């Protein structure tokens, strides 16, 4: 039964040993160890936090970049569209102007031609009239040399008039 009878000396020394060990380890080991571990854990969690923040910031930056890019693209598209429209309009305008000019020129030309034609016609007419008078003078001079012939002419004319 000695086995389960605690001896006084060992109780004393076990108490002394444990208490001294507790005090010494607490002061020289556990406190510095736990402080160091806590400090490291804190710094790790802080580092993780800041990394997370940086990640978020990066994501923000990226999204804002993308937004800018999209905006720029839109702007470019709008500008292209405008340019295209302007070009079309310019061409259109040029075309209309050109055709108008052409028409105008054609009209002027026609007018000139008409005038020239009229002038020519008038000249031809006067020429023809002169010629006709000349011819008629000569014919009349020949035909109306005798009375008969004069009579014949008058008769002829009279007939024509009647026919008409």
């Amino acid at each position, binding site marked *: 039964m000695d*086995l389960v009878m*605690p001896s*006084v*000396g060992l109780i004393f*020394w076990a108490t002394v040993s444990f208490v001294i060990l*507790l005090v010494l380890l607490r002061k020289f*080991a*556990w*406190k510095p160890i*736990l402080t160091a571990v806590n400090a490291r854990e804190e710094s790790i969690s802080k580092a993780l936090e800041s990394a997370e923040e940086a990640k978020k910031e990066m994501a923000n930056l990226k999204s804002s970049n993308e937004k800018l890019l999209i905006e720029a693209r839109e702007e470019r598209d709008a500008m292209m569209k405008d340019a295209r429209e302007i070009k079309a309009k310019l061409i259109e305008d040029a075309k209309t102007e050109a055709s108008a000019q052409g028409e105008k020129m054609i009209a002027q030309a026609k007018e000139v031609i008409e005038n020239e034609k009229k002038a020519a016609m008038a000249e031809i007419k006067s020429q023809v009239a002169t010629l006709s008078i000349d011819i008629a003078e000569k014919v009349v001079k020949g035909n109306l040399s005798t009375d008969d012939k004069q009579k014949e002419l008058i008769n002829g004319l009279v007939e024509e008039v009647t026919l008409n």
Partner: protein
Amino acid sequence: MLRKTNLLLLLFSFATFALNANNPEEHSDHSDSHELNAHDEHGGKFDPVPMIMEHISDAHEIHWWGHGHDAVSWPLPVILWTNDGLVTFMSSEFHHDNEGKHLVEKGGQQFVRSHGKIYYASNELNKEGNYIALNNEGEALSKPLDFSITKSVVGMFLIMIILLLIFTAVARSYKKNGGIPKRLTGWMEPLVIFIRDDVAKPNIGDKKYAKYVPFLLTLFFFIWGLNLLGLTPIGFNVTGNIAVTMVLAVITLIVTLVSANKNYWGHIFNPPVPGALKPLMVPIEIVGVFTKPFALMIRLFANITAGHIVILSLISLIFIAQNAGGDGLAWGMSLPSMLLVLFISVLELLVAVLQAYIFTLLTALFIGMAVEEHH
């Protein structure tokens, strides 16, 4: 799972303990045959029980090998508080006597040692054949208080020094390496964090655990270190000594009671049960305060002692075989015996850390119950 394993180990240990505990009565008739070479004196009979009992008991010297006057051992200081005050001398003055036959005279008083205990001695042999001083009724006089630096005390000091060296080195390494755990620190830090995060925090609670971490850490490493020391061939059996486990359990009890809050005391003296049951429950609760550390004390003591007994019994098989069938059988027995010892030793390595863990865990649990807020 853990609880089951522990229960099994506990049952196992009690079974072996009970088996072995019966034997000392039977053999007490020739109890002076407790030396390993007893079979020379007693007709070639080897008796494992005294040998085992001697190996798991505390001693006044560190015994290496040999028997009687040929024994090679380191003497340790004997410190006695006698009727006339303090008396100190080295245990070598007993000249390896452990049967009350060698008188040591110091400070005008005489002492003898018998079975690891120191008695007042008289000049005349008593009828048992030793010098233990007896009173009129034939009983030994009350012994002087023995505060000797025994083998177990040396074991505790050794573990103290080792733990201090290891953990102050670990503490220093943080400063040196800028908080990065390297080498030894890399090995020790997970254990420290394990006790903090998996033992203290969940059982005591996030708000209050920090105060108790140093205590739990000291407890865990002290018990584990002593358990491991017990597995060395030098054969320390410190955590298998009821005095040591008692001290640890009492410290746990004191820490629990000192940190207990109103809620805890309320649960004990005014348990939340119907009024009629209160007279029944209050004594049960009060007993419960003491049974918890008591179980701690017995569990650690029984597990470690049982491990030692099993290993020593298996080694004894060789000598028992020698008794039964001569040297040939002894040699034949040695291999299976050694294999079994190896197996149990490995199991004991597990038990060493498991018991340290369980003791610490339950301590944390008891503290947690004591500081728990009302909810």
